[in-house]
């Protein structure tokens, strides 16, 4: 905050402001190669997010199938899963998975974190997939079955491809939420973007620049992602064009 006031009221003009900015920038990112922490953090965040999204999708699909099943026990298990995950904070889940469930398992830290996030994300994904499958008209299933396709074939060739198109926007949202959610992995000692920014803050006693930088990095990552997903969505909509 003091820094800020100095910049705004210092009166030495723009050149002084730039000099101060450069000095702070050097201290935050160049000195002791601190930018490398952030780069490393970006890698960790991306790694965890991608693996968690992938596993989350699989878990979500399986849970959705359970929730839609005719079997009462499977339906019950699906409901319990989503209830428990949605009813507890993700930090708590992460710490339980990390310090309790995988306490004695020899796996790389980031993989354990990714598993924790996938378990969390899976609950939300399952609800999205369930809604997506239910949104497809029953006539589609009947048409598939009447041709002699099995239930599984009908699901995979007819229902799921249409559901994917419907749930794509919601899935993108979930993926974005997941990326931001990973900012808590510092709790289990992983150096992601957030933790790197926090570390620089502690090491330099400068708060604004490292934290703003952290925010900008997340923003840019997610902006790139949404742009790519937007292109994919457009392609999925190919069959809607009259």
């Amino acid at each position, binding site marked *: 905050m003091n820094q800020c006031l100095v910049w705004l009221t210092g009166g030495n003009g723009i050149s002084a402001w730039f000099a101060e900015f450069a000095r702070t920038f050097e201290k935050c990112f160049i000195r002791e190669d601190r930018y490398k922490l952030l780069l490393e953090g970006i890698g960790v965040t991306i790694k965890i997010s991608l693996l968690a999204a992938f596993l989350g999708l699989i878990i979500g699909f399986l849970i959705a199938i359970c929730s839609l099943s005719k079997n009462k026990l499977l339906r019950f298990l699906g409901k319990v899963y989503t209830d428990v995950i949605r009813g507890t904070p993700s930090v708590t889940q992460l710490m339980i998975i990390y310090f309790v469930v995988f306490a004695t398992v020899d796996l790389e830290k980031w993989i354990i974190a990714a598993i924790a996030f996938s378990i969390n994300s899976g609950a939300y994904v399952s609800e999205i997939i369930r809604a997506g499958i239910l949104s497809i008209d029953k006539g*589609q299933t009947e*048409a598939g079955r009447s041709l002699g396709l099995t239930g599984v074939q009908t699901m995979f060739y007819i229902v799921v491809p249409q559901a994917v198109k419907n749930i794509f926007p919601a899935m993108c949202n979930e993926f974005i939420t997941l990326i931001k959610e990973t900012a808590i992995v510092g709790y289990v000692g992983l150096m992601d973007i957030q933790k790197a920014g926090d570390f620089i803050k502690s090491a330099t006693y400068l708060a604004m620049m490292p934290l703003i930088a952290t925010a900008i990095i997340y923003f840019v990552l997610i902006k790139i992602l949404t742009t790519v997903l937007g292109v994919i969505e457009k392609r999925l909509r190919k069959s809607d064009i009259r």
Partner: protein
Amino acid sequence: MIKVNDLHKSFGKLDVLNGIDEHIRPGEVVVVIGPSGSGKSTFLRCLNLLEKPNKGEIYVDDELINAPKVDVNKVRQKMGMVFQHFNLFPHLTVMENITLAPVKLKKMTKEQAQEKGEELLKIVGLSDKADSYPVQLSGGQKQRIAIARSLAMEPEIMLFDEPTSALDPEMVGEVLDVMKNLAKSGMTMVVVTHEMGFAREVATRVVFMDGGVVLESGTPEEIFDHPQNERTKLFLSKVL
């Protein structure tokens, strides 16, 4: 070809079919008529087990198909079904709609299915639409594609569940024409419809249903010109 004995079906407390006996022979075109809620569609849907009967027997080619261990999918491959609302797969092109089932069920190679598809599109008069998506077609065109899609599996029997009820009036003719040609080619057909003109012209037998039972069955002349049952007379006086 299809033999039905004492077929019963209820949805919860609602009894829809109350004992139907029917025998459909190869090459027959059976048109089922009757008021709304009489069980016509349910009867048709029982034939390929889209609805599971509560009681009774359905034999297709002398095989009891509503027995526990029957491969329902195999049975359904012998029976094409055309729905009131077409139910084309909107995410696939017309050609993909037609070739999906024969290819996935390993009945044909992709090339064979394509060839068959082109042949069928010619029959229904839509050769130029192979690469279109369903959303780009009119109702009549969709239904003709749906018929082609069913025919691609080379079924022995075709079931039509009110195939023209969701169409604009000017499109009904094109669909009925396709069905007439199909009947002429000797296909065994069971048609639930409100098109009395079609029934009169194409049916080899007309079945009148009401209250979940078959009340009267006979040639179009017998049913339309000399109905015996009072309810048949009443129904026909309203629709003709």
